[in-house]
């Protein structure tokens, strides 16, 4: 069971209270019309999915509702970093 300390409400949250929200740092084009189909569909669909350390978005869903970033290992589930959303991992 994943447990994360939400960097906003500072509560330890178990996974039932959290929501996983995909890989972090997937950039949305500032002007979507200006990018190629390839760039746009990369943004939509392509994921790195590494076996190892992953940068992820999580939300304190049943708690304070804030999104934050987590660096987590996909095998051990060890957590290296939990940071507010504006932090660049």
């Amino acid at each position, binding site marked *: 069971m994943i447990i994360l300390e939400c960097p*906003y*409400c500072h*509560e*330890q949250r178990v996974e039932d209270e959290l929501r996983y929200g995909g890989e972090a740092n997937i950039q949305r084009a500032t002007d979507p019309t200006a990018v190629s189909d390839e760039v746009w569909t990369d943004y939509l669909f392509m994921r790195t999915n590494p076996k190892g350390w992953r940068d992820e978005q999580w939300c304190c869903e*049943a*708690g*304070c*509702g*804030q999104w934050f970033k987590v660096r987590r290992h996909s095998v051990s589930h060890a957590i290296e970093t939990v940071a507010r959303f504006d932090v660049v991992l």
Partner: protein
Amino acid sequence: MMLNACAEFGTVIGQAEQLSHFVSTTVKVWERSDIGSLLVSCAVDAAKVASRLEQVARLPFPQQAGEFLELDARRTIWLTPRSWIMHCGLEDELQLAGQINCEFPDKVVHASLFSDYLCWLELAGAGTAALLAEGGFISLEKHGLPIGHAKRTLVAGVAAITLHWRVGRWLVGVERSRAVYFAAWLQAAAARASKLELTG
């Protein structure tokens, strides 16, 4: 013409009334339909508007996560980094909302009517903490949620705003449509507890 108000569990509206059908030897439950609520949300960083809010509402607004503060039978509860729940008398809800919303015509702060969104239950008695702990961890701190702290957390699978109010006394707010479920769950859990703890 005047429509009638009705409390979720049929208690007298505007009063703290014990749920008489709730059976437990160690826990008592009150429906707190006397509590009026506002949801105060900020469109900007909360720190920028807190002092103005405090002035207009004449109440302290907690800046610390997990805090709630009380003054003259009113209460402000930290909900998210940009919102609070305010408790007041049910009859004061409209006026208080008006005061706040007048202060912020640009809507950087907005007070939404919220008295009916949550159904507030007060739980008290020796078995209360154990009863809630059947529905979730409530807190992962060793000594549990400290008195004077509030936390939105899952209890029995529904998000509940949980206040450890006084010694052995809790306030729990659950979304209204799920309140019947939540009360039924509480009752079933209390019944199981008394069955198991007869001697064990």
